[in-house]
């Protein structure tokens, strides 16, 4: 266990890397998590628990495939239910990874370096959970291939490219692929480090194959840096497009509460909000359990909190705007939607949403909250709960009461809905912990560039 966090004097920001590090200590500390034979007890416990939840997910999905989506709470008029709520929630969480690795790279925010690797992993694993929901929501995922993708089939039918749902398929699958490439290309030099630091032949061979013969040549680095910067430049508009397209799933329809032009920026801000909350939920236990306080310093936690505060304010503005536009339009269906949120049968969820996403995160204005890991952790949990509620409010409360009162209805989830939702959290945790054990969770080669010795002196 490393030394506890020491808060610097007032007016001085904590460093982005602890003092006294050398190329060797950075390498040994980060590679040591992977190359040790000793598996920590907490790791075994968490993985066992997560694997149990993953088993629950598999059971619930198997039963779903056997019986059909009738085991869920979805019904007409609310045909989307948990599946789409969870889809939007997970895909939103996935957005922080690319924001950290691409956008902050282009803005030369060097503090991103110690959190970008596991934020990218978080993105990939979150998008995997997200992708599961629309797939099983089709009821017959084995047929979904040609429903979703333009795959030649004997019936000669093709996807409808005027539909935002098909845009979503392309956006999410491209996002997954590009995130995976970004993560993979970042890992190559670190796999070479693990190969060269490995103590046994088998381990050396495995990481050797993954490193693909990387030898740190200047010519290679030169092309590598170009490719890396270009990927960052490509991922930046991509990450903004993905949640914009997700929001168009709603906004292109004419349902009251969905049919608004500000949905894309509102969804993107919300995605980054929840993504940074998830980064904190993973970073705070990780740095504590592995003693990584020198690499993931208070500065990283404070900066993440500030990003959350900024995006949270955008989200709060969007909530206000939703209400304002409902009133300003003087459209009776839009007014009814506003009234339904404030006084309808689900108003409790709406007020909880305001509490979780607007009121409680205001505590991030206080430096004492931003600099205390456990307080930040609690705020992050609250924000992620709030973001889930936001998607519930959007999906369920708009579908629940549309234009004709005879087609109004209510939605309640079933135990199968809950088993699958909780199960994806287990699956996510399982993947994340396996990643921490087998791959460097902090980018070793980029950390080396942060210390003073890395600069060439004239």
């Amino acid at each position, binding site marked *: 266990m490393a030394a506890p966090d020491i808060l610097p004097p007032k007016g001085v920001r904590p460093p982005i890397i602890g003092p006294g590090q050398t190329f060797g200590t950075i*390498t040994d500390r980060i590679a040591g998590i992977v190359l040790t034979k000793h598996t920590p007890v907490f790791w075994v416990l968490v993985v066992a628990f997560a694997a149990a939840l993953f088993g629950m997910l598999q059971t619930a999905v198997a039963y779903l495939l056997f019986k059909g989506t009738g085991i869920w709470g979805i019904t007409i008029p609310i045909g989307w239910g948990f599946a789409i709520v969870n889809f939007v929630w997970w895909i939103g969480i996935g957005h922080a990874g690319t924001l950290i690795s691409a956008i902050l790279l282009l803005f030369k925010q060097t503090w991103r370096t110690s959190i970008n690797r596991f934020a990218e992993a978080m993105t990939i694993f979150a998008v995997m959970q997200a992708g599961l929901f629309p797939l099983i929501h089709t009821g017959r995922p084995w047929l979904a291939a040609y429903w979703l993708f333009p795959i030649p089939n004997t019936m000669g039918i093709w996807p409808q490219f005027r539909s935002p749902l098909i845009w979503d398929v392309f956006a999410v699958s491209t996002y997954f692929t*590009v995130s995976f*490439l970004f993560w993979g290309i970042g890992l190559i030099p670190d796999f070479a480090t693990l190969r060269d630091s490995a103590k046994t032949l088998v381990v050396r061979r495995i990481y050797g194959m993954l490193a693909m013969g990387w030898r740190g040549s200047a010519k290679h680095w030169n092309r590598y840096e170009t490719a890396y910067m*270009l990927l960052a430049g490509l991922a930046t508009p991509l990450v903004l497009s993905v949640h914009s397209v997700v929001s168009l799933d709603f906004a292109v329809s004419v349902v009251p509460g969905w049919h608004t032009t500000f949905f894309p920026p509102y969804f993107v801000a919300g995605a980054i909000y929840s993504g940074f909350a998830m980064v904190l939920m993973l970073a705070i236990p990780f740095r504590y359990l592995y003693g990584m306080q020198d690499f993931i310093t208070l500065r990283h936690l404070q900066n993440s909190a500030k990003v959350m505060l900024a995006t949270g304010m955008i989200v709060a503005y969007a909530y206000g705007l939703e209400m304002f536009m409902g009133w300003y339009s003087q459209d009776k269906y839009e007014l009814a939607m506003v009234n339904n949120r404030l006084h309808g049968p689900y108003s409790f969820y709406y007020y909880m949403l305001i509490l979780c996403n607007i009121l409680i995160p205001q505590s991030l204005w206080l430096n004492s909250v931003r600099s205390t890991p456990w307080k930040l952790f609690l705020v992050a949990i609250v924000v992620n709960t709030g973001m889930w509620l936001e998607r519930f409010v959007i999906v369920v409360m708009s579908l629940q009461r549309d234009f004709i009162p005879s087609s109004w209805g209510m939605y309640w989830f079933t135990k199968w809905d809950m088993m699958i939702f909780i199960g994806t959290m287990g699956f996510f945790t399982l993947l994340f912990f396996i990643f921490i054990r087998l791959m460097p969770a902090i980018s070793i080669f980029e950390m080396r560039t942060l210390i003073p010795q890395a600069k060439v002196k004239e």
Partner: protein
Amino acid sequence: MKAGPGPIFGLMAEFETPTELVHAAKGAYAAGYRKMDTYTPYPLEEAAEAIGAHHNRVSLIVLIGAMLGMVGGYSLEYWVSVIAYPINSGGKPFHSWPAFIPVTFECAILGASLAAVFGMLALNGLPQPYHPVFNAPNFVRASKDRFFLCIEAQDPRFSPSDTRKLLESFQPEEITEVPY
């Protein structure tokens, strides 16, 4: 072990700091050596510049990938919506181009990203399971905390004694012959 064109691959000098490495690389370049490379644990722009390797064709490949993705994506949508499976959807024209933009955009990004990664790997000649520089003793530290300069025996100016003398003038930690 495979026999190479010469008795050795080159001479490898090991340095403790990036500054020494860049100084040596500049010196070797000034002495007329061209077939050489530096090996560093993190990207060192100055080293690439010192050995004259700061231009590459990755950007061009990415541009081609983006173009292919863009044209491919739009053509697919046009073919599906106008030729193969025309459906009147809400009275919109079969060729409703504004609705085709999001998928075209995603396909362009996808093409460019695949081109960036696989183009970079191809230009670097990776995956490459064997390379002579790994025979140099202590080369495992090139991925950790040491900086290496290798002048290759294929360079026309290479001579085992003169090249060694030149490298010695840069005061490296160690100079070793790299066998094939």
